[in-house]
Structures are given as C-alpha cells and as structure tokens.
C-alpha cells in the first residue's frame, strides 16, 4: 500500500469566498495580524504499491481538482 497526500488550492487570482469570510471573521475576533486566509482541500489517497506520482497527477487533473480554477500538490507519504 502506498499513500499520497494531495493539497488542492484555488489558482492565484481566483477569489476564495470561504477563505475571505474566515479572514474577515478572524480579524473581527481581534486577530489583526491576519492578512490572508486561503481554504483548500486535503485528500489522503491509498493506492497499490508502485503507483506512480504521474498516475496520481492524472487522477487529480481528471477528477480531484478542476484545472480551470484549482492547483494541486502531491506529496508521497513515507511509511515510518
């Protein structure tokens, strides 16, 4: 079993309504130091041993992320 972590975030310049709302909420709670909040998705993927990162990238481009609005970053998880 191999594991990957996938981080999906909005592309630069794409407005992130939940992030903007969280940003305003933090500032209104007194956290004046907050200047930006971006909210994305975190996906944990378990696949058969030997599955390549390219294949995971294909899954991201096809289904897990929408390349029109989102970027994704893939990190293989090293087993302890």
């Amino acid at each position: 079993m191999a594991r990957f972590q996938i981080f999906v975030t909005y592309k630069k310049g794409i407005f992130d309504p939940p992030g903007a709302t969280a940003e305003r909420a933090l500032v209104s709670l007194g956290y004046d130091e907050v200047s930006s909040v971006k909210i994305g998705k975190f996906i944990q993927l378990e696949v058969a041993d030997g599955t390549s990162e390219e294949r995971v990238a294909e899954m991201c481009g096809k289904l897990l992320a929408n390349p029109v609005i989102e970027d994704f970053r893939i990190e293989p998880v090293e087993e302890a």
Partner: protein
Amino acid sequence: MRFGVVIFPGSNCEQDVVHAAHVLGHEADYVWHGDTDLAGFDAIVLPGGFSYGDYIRCGAVARFSPVMAEVVRFAERGAPVIGICNGFQILAEAHLLPGALLRNQGLKFICKEITVTVEKSACQWMDATPGSLLRLPINHNEGNYICDPETLARMEANGQIVLRYCESDGSRAEGGSAPNGALDDIAGICNERGNVFGLMPHPERVVDPATGHTDGAVVFASIARRLAEVG
C-alpha cells in the same frame, strides 16, 4: 419536439422541466444517467439539483456518468443541450462550456427571483430581443461564474454571453448586479456554436402561468422554433 431530461442521482428539477415542456405542447421524457442511447430526442436538458451530493465539486462526478459521453457526442454534432443550475455546473465540468462556478460570494444559498438582461448572442436557446429583461428564479449555492480574462474576451467577441444579472430596471450596479458575485454579472453562457447553453436561473419554473408569469418560456420556445425551421 421531444426533450430528453437527464436524471442523475440527486437531480431534483427534472419534473419541473418535463412539466414546462408539456405546458408548451412538447413531449418530454426522462433519461437515466446510466443510459447511453439518446435516439429520438431533439434536445437534451441537464436539470437542476445536487447530482452526486455535489461531492468533490458540483457536477464533477455527474460529468463521468455513462450518459454524459453521449451528451458530449450529441452536443458535438450540433444538437441542442441546455444545463440549468446544477446542469450548468455539469456542462462546465465536462468542458462543454468554458469557465467554472464557484461558491457564492457571501457564502449564502440564494433562493429568490432576479432580473437578467438578454445579451446579443449566438445562443439557439435565446431568440429574444437583446436588451429585453426576464424575471427568473435562482436557487443555488455555487453560481459565482469565473473564467480567465482571455476566455471572457473571446466569449464576448463570439457572442457567447447570453444572460447578465441586472437591477430590476435593467441597469447594472457599479459593484456588479450578480447576487452571487459572478464575473461580469454573467448568468448564462453558450458555446461558440450556440447549441449548448448553461444558465444558473431556472426558466422551467416560470413557464406555467399558474406559477405567476411565463418569462422562462422563451428558452424552450426558442429552441423549438429553431428546430422547426432547420427541420
């Protein structure tokens, strides 16, 4: 003419579309998302709802339903396809229409009647005088249309912007009139050819005079008239 109305798991506006078609004197039948035969249908409707629970992104899973490969082929040969609300999101995910639909600015699910302006467009589903106003209901959480500046310029040049949100008098507010934050107040767009139309408002809900008015009828009447003309 005969409309095919696709039902995905989680669709919930398919009966409204069939009723609207019947009110206008057309035939309409349901198409199951697992079906792969669209023979006998003159136009395909992807109705509103929450296909596959809106998981991953709205329309992201529905786009891979067996029926969608046929819908893509149907659209590619120039036959008319319309996506209403969740159907619009599915068409965008399937790349039959450019851009994407993000969560509403303000994070509110919006359910109310709004006004849109009919733009001068190539859309086969909107045979109405440019500048005329329509009152249509909206009912969505992810209608915040976005695309890159190049795509917007291309759509503008090709007449692909079909409907824009506006104030009730037809003017557009300085900060935008889209209740959901949509780019350039965009409420509905079509492909270059004009046969594929996606919109967030629900025209099917304002076709039967029993529901108040009939501003939505123009969408279904336009495509019926066009198909009658081209045979």
